[in-house]
């Protein structure tokens, strides 16, 4: 049999490399990969743009937070704000002025120091473009807010008070002005930065194959000390969640970020796998078109809110809690005892009788993001619920850009419009402002709903720095919104992550937890 050895050897290598469970990995193993310490993250989302002031969404956040740096960063549960580019900061008593002391060691990839001018330049570009994460600071700062006191001192003066300002800063990336200016072109370097990195972070892009994978590699002799032992990482696009799960199970991936509850159940007792199932500030609601069509009628909205089968929604969502009102459970000011709609067909019919729809024969429309299985299931739960009160539902899958485009006017917005809102910062303002403030009308987060009363409450909550007073404001906000019934308040899905047990240094943070931060992670 000796002559068959080379073949066997090949087979062994293949099995080990593909994570085959047939042979013990110790036989040969991907020794090279071991030495290289490359972490593989399986995700179903492509990364549409690298521009730190244009891109948004979790996959972009996952890329940007590893190749760009921000003034501060967040970590842990509850969320703590930690130094990053800024090694320390002070806040004025009225909460209007922040002074950041930059880490003098911080350098961009080309060796240029990350100085106050670069911070100022980055905020100015963010505001100029008005895209990406700019909404987080929109109206809070203007072009004169950020000033460079000296090379390593930045002062940010808010235009309006905002209690959670530090919480939004981790998502505002600092670019290298030298590179951006050199490649400015006619579009403020958007073309350039769409595919090029001009950051200061510990990782850089080694390989980008859109639709397939993005490979990071660690920058040698980086200014940041400490961290894990990773030499690189791969953001691998694996569309099917079951494929993600199997990749993880077989060791082909170290972290899977889009698993379904079914996947988590299947992985439960698998060796070598660690599961993270944690509550997160990510809401899922079905918005109703309060401006155009039958759902302008508040009685119909209430009827539907009572008819909806909340239990079925929770069942299909797996690891999830039902929302109590518009704000995520556990966030500052959230009222767990708020009286919200729960399935009650008698009440549903009572409200239905008061509406135009009592005549029957009503057919409503719903759109959802094609391919988002959870949204499709919620759509069917809604269809089933509406049938109980004699309303038909037309469910249509659309690609995300089309849905966003349809949100531009009330008339083009569907009757029902499901949306996930991920909190980028752990403050009620995030969801309240993004999802219910009228300034967001025409955008995907809040296409149509507007109420002067709600707007006023949100603005007051934003400006108030006294925590007790804020709580009171948000309590009132929740009550008003629930009375208006603009949404079917849905579920808070727990964050579901699965990791190989050899991934060390992972700290769960309930904001954008699927945008994995590589710096602190180690393998083996």
């Amino acid at each position, binding site marked *: 049999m000796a002559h068959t050895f080379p073949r066997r050897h090949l087979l062994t290598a293949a099995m080990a490399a593909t994570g085959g469970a047939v042979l013990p990995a110790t036989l040969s193993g991907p020794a090279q990969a071991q030495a290289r310490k490359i972490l593989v993250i399986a995700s179903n989302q492509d990364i549409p743009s690298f521009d730190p002031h244009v891109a948004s969404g979790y996959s972009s956040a996952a890329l940007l937070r590893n190749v760009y740096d921000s003034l501060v960063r967040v970590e842990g549960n509850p969320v703590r704000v930690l130094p990053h580019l800024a090694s320390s900061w002070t806040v004025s008593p009225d909460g209007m002025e922040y002074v950041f002391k930059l880490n003098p060691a911080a350098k961009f990839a080309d060796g240029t120091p990350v100085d106050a001018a670069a911070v100022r330049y980055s905020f100015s570009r963010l505001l100029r473009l008005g895209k990406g994460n700019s909404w987080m600071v929109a109206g809070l700062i203007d072009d004169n807010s950020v000033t460079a006191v000296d090379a390593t001192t930045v002062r940010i003066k808010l235009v309006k008070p905002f209690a959670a300002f530090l919480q939004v800063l981790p998502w505002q990336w600092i670019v290298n002005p030298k590179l951006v200016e050199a490649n400015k072109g006619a579009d403020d370097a958007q073309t350039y930065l769409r595919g090029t990195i001009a950051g200061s972070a510990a990782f850089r892009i080694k390989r980008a194959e859109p639709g397939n994978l993005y490979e990071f590699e660690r920058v040698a002799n980086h200014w940041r000390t400490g961290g894990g032992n990773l030499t690189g990482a791969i953001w691998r696009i694996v569309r*099917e*969640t*079951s494929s993600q799960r199997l990749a993880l199970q077989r060791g082909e991936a170290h972290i899977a970020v889009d698993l*379904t509850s*079914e996947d988590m159940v*299947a992985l439960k007792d698998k060796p070598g796998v660690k599961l993270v199932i944690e509550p997160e500030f990510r809401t899922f609601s079905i918005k109703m078109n309060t401006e155009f069509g039958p759902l302008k009628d508040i009685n119909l909205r209430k009827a539907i809110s009572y008819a909806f*089968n909340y*239990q*079925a929604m929770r*069942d*299909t969502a797996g690891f999830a809690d039902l929302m109590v009102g518009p704000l995520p459970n556990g966030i500052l000011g959230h009222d767990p005892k708020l009286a919200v709609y729960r399935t009650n067909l008698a009440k549903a019919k009572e409200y239905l009788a008061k509406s135009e729809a009592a005549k029957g024969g009503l057919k409503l429309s719903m759109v959802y993001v*094609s*391919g988002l*299985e959870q949204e*499709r*299931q919620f*759509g*069917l*739960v809604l*269809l*089933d619920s509406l*049938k109980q009160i004699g309303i038909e*539902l*037309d*469910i*249509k*899958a*659309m690609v995300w850009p089309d849905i966003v485009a349809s949100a531009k006017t009330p008339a083009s917005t569907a009757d029902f419009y499901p949306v996930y809102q991920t909190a980028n910062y752990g403050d009620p303002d995030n969801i309240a402002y993004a999802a219910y403030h009228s300034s967001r009308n025409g955008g995907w987060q809040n296409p149509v709903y507007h109420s002067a009363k709600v707007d006023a409450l949100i603005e007051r909550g934003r400006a108030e720095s006294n925590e007790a007073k804020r709580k009171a404001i948000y309590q009132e906000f929740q009550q008003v919104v629930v009375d208006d019934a603009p949404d079917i308040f849905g579920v808070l899905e727990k964050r579901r992550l699965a990791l190989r047990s050899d991934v060390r240094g992972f700290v769960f943070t309930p904001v954008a937890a699927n945008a994995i931060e590589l710096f602190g992670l180690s393998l083996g």
Partner: protein
Amino acid sequence: MSGARWLNLRRGFYRFRRSWLSMVGLVIVAALVLVALVGPALVPHPEHVAGGINTTARFLTPSASAWFGTNELGQDVFSLTIAGSRVSLLAGISVVVLAAGFGTLVGAVAGYYGGWLDEALMRFTDLMLTLPSLILAMAVAAAMGPGLGNTVFAIALSWWPGFARLVRGEVMAKKADTFVIAARALGAGTPRILGRHILPNIASPIIIKMSLDMGFAILTVASLGFVGIGVKPPTPEWGSLLSTARGYLPDYWWTAIFPGSAIFLAVFGFNLLGDGLRDVLDPRARR
């Protein structure tokens, strides 16, 4: 001539009956048609077919109470699969009929008039044939939005050239036949000659192609469903059922195996039958 034709037909049916493969095909297709006609009314959970859910009974394994198990929403997979037969059959027939209708029109006009018109129409037809049909259908269906009608239209759009070429050839062959020349001499108009004299005489190759195409039309509809460009929920279309179920492999295999097998069985039945019919109606093409 008609005697010889009758004999051919009789021998053909003799062969058809003798060929048990064709008979199996006939049985499958007959069963499929029957199921499509009455099945949706007889399934254990018609409410699930209409989109009803039962989240307390999610992912039940196949058993006596739910033969094919239940899916992620607690819907009875057996009911959905049975009801899917109507969707697939209807879509398949629509595709083939639309394609045959348009293809026959183009082919007949090109073949009958000849000349530059023929040249132009056939160049166009050939170009359409070089286009990758699935990608074309996907692009059109995606641009038109989901829905069975749009899917059918998109597929038919890439399907007609085959019919056009077939009909053109047959019409050109028949154009020179004496009975056509006689009809023309008697002053019959073009539509009349085409409709009354030529088309009835070339019906059998068209029917053969339609029957041979049925299976692939069903397959293509399911393919579009599978890539996620197809019907709207809750329409129980086999391809989209399979596409959803794919995410639950391997643990909840029954949600995938049954709709997938249904596609296979339907296509297989039509292919067996189509093969048999070709033997009957077109003895030249035997083997």
